[in-house]
């Protein structure tokens, strides 16, 4: 058994080395690459912590999509990086920040280590109430039943963030398309990938949603895969980002939270509570919400990566 703590120590050590690298690396592109590697390593940590659902989320969103965003931004900002000289901190200041950050981190570490043992846990309660939804995956139960409000509000966060990103468009480009990716070589490798991968990816994304009823997976993780497939197609120039004024697109972007709200209000009207599910229909209703959610989340994530509209609607 001693090999397992050794493995944990090794993983933690590598995670820390890469984390330090992302902070101290001289140029931003290297730091971003370091961050993507860090995110993947973190997924390992999550598996070791017994949370495969989170590991999937971390790898897909924390590392994959965030990485894609950061790499794109780093490439566009490269020209301006050398001219950045603002708000530099001298050596003394850095040391001071380092000292204070160390104290805060140490306090948190002490707090974490001082937590009571045995730890308080809601796992037994979650297990006892799992029958109410008919789903076998406890995390899906939490997200869709016990704390459905958070999940619904989080969909709203996505919509608001997207409106925020769109609000940064130049006035002339409103209603138009987000930044177009330049057409790749039609014979090139990317176009090949964009033709081969998406069919597989779509199947995989829906599979990840489908199994989430009883196994690790879920709407977010599946949606991220779908979003990634769409982004590959866009980057290869095989498709165009839709115009932000399109009604169908907007419907898709709110379908998840709207279905959630309708089901929630339905629960209220049928005599139950807001966001409660009918006894025998819980599983199909939840899967219906998740299906609406996967479309919404996939579209929102992809458009958040694509950025504000930059071209007007007319070609």
């Amino acid at each position, binding site marked *: 058994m001693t090999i397992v703590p050794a493995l944990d120590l090794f993983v933690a050590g590598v995670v820390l080395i890469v984390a330090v690298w992302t902070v101290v690396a001289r140029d931003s592109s290297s730091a971003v690459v370091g961050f993507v590697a860090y995110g993947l390593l973190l997924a390992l940590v999550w598996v070791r912590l017994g949370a495969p659902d989170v590991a999937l989320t971390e790898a897909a969103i924390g590392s994959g999509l965030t990485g894609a965003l950061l790499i794109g931004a780093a490439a566009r900002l490269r020209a301006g990086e050398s001219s950045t000289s603002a708000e530099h901190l001298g050596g003394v200041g850095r040391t001071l920040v380092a000292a204070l950050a160390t104290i805060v981190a140490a306090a948190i570490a002490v707090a974490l280590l001082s937590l009571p043992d045995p*730890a308080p846990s809601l796992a037994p309660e979650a297990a006892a109430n799992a029958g109410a939804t008919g789903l076998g995956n406890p995390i899906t139960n939490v997200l869709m039943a016990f704390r459905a409000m958070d999940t619904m509000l989080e969909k709203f*966060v996505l919509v608001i963030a997207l409106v925020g990103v769109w609000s940064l468009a130049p006035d002339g480009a409103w209603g138009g398309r987000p930044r177009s990716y330049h057409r790749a070589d039609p014979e090139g490798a990317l176009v090949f990938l964009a033709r081969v991968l998406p069919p597989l990816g779509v199947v995989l994304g829906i599979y990840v949603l489908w199994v989430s009823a009883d196994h690790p997976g879920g709407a977010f993780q599946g949606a991220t895969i779908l979003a990634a497939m769409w982004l590959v197609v866009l980057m290869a120039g095989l498709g165009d980002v839709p115009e932000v004024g399109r009604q169908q697109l907007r419907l898709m972007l709110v379908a998840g939270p709207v279905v959630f709200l309708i089901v929630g209000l339905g629960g209220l009207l049928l005599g139950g509570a807001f966001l409660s599910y009918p006894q025998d229909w819980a599983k199909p209703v939840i899967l219906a919400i998740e299906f609406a959610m996967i479309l919404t989340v996939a579209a929102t994530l992809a458009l958040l990566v694509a950025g504000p509209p930059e071209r007007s609607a007319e070609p």
Partner: protein
Amino acid sequence: MSGPVAVLESAGSSGALLVLSIVVPVAAALVAFVAGGRRTAWIALAALPVGLAVAVAIAAKVPQTGGALVYLLGGWAPPLGVALRADGLSAVMLVVTACVVAAIGVYARADFRVAAGAAEERAPFTFWILLLGVWGGLNTVFLAGDLFTLYVALEILTFAAVPLVCLDGRAETLQAALRYLLFALLGSVLYLAGTTLLYGAYGTLDVVLLSRLVTAEPAVLVAGSLMTVGLLAKTALVPLHLWLPPAHAGAPPAGSALLSALVVKGSFFIVVRLWFDVMPGLQSVAATQMLSALGATAILLGSVVALRQERLKLLIAYSTLAQIGYLFLMFALAYDAGAASMLKGDALAGGMLQAMSHAAAKAAMFMAAGSIYTALGHDRIAALAGAGRRVPGAVAAFALGGLALVGLPPSGAYLAKELLLRSAADTGQWWWAVVIQAGGAFTCAYLLLVLARVLGPVNRTATADETTDETATKRGRVGWSQQAAALALAACSLALGLVDWSAWLPVPPGTRLSSSLVDTIAAAVWPVLAGGVLAVLLGRWTPPPRGRLQQAAAALGPLRRAGVALGAGFCRADAFLRQWPVAGLSLLALAIVFGAALSARY
């Protein structure tokens, strides 16, 4: 809101009102998003009265429950599920928020209208959805009984607020928005770190359940200090205010009103929840005195720097800084050293009342400033003369809002001041009484400075300047509805002191304007006098060119020079504190000092 019954059972059908109060703005935002075009504004405007009615209904129900309206979402009781709770504090904040949002909606109708021929325009579309987003986020903040739901609500609030700053797309507002977002994100992550520790210690994030469990353990002390400091960063309490002045001054008027009046109150409200509901017995003399001392610093710094501003919107933004400080004075006054606990009494009521009247008054003032800007084509304080003739309603709203802020009877701020002073006297903390009075005088000082310009004679040289000024080229007409909206809010703020708040706030029944006529007049006169002196000594003004006043000015010479030097010093201090690394250091240092203050209780 104690007792197991209140926690675990929904209060029948009226509890569904709490759900509606969140669902109305959220659903309206989603529908408005799909509808697009001119319909976006109409949907938002239609949601305003509905939301207001829901808020009023909640406020009417809460006193009948004897504690709080509770709703269990999905029928799941905490700790597994999430509960919505409305106590008196939530109820009044819901109503005030709905009123202010409605007034801002009326005001913004003219500014964010889609031109007749156009299908859809960027700024109107985003403004209306973000307005509903801010509203939904705030309602969730006031109602959520779970620390993680509060986190999601805070993020809704932040993500909706930040784009409002840079709706016009100018480079400096983009920068202000970016600084705002980045600093606010630091704050929310610290808050989230605290929630983890609390969950790890007690296995629940429910506010009421936690309040029965918390004891002074290391994890709780660390959590308390991280969460408090994170929220202070989002509230922009000095010295964590680097983002506020440029963001609040740069936004379009309706956006500024929303940000200054309401958005900062969201994180403030969570601080109140945290200190009074989650861990009231955990605070210490050191921690409460420190928090209020930060508030006092904010009053001093914000007011003096406000007096030095050239532009009206920046002046109002710095006044917000000072007023945020005012909100934190109640923490020292509400701490009962004997019981070693935060008490819900006069001080809390005063603080909340201050928050409410500031919300109404500040929104009115920003809206009025926006109208003045539109009418004159600029907002340079030195050249405001003549605004009274062009937009009399807006100037009146500005003056009334200002008087309400100063705390002249019968304003809400006056009652708040009375309550705070009473509690200062009860607890023997005379130094806070001094700070409270000084705050009123300072507010009066910058109000007088502006009003003197607005009502004064038109300055020929300034007018000549103005015609060459590029910003002055775009003068516009201001509709009556905009001025009326601002005026109505200002009047609300002035009338808040007439209400008997005992049904919602922890004050004895019948608490309203209690003092005699003489006292009232004295209370009205002395801040004006003191404010006048402060304005003369510290304000930015040019001595009159001739006449008797000039001799008076000359006689004041040395004092005035000292005042100017002092003002310049404060401006430099403010500029220093608003550098990113300095603010970051302050954030870390405050977290550590709070942790130490909380643990140094025995």
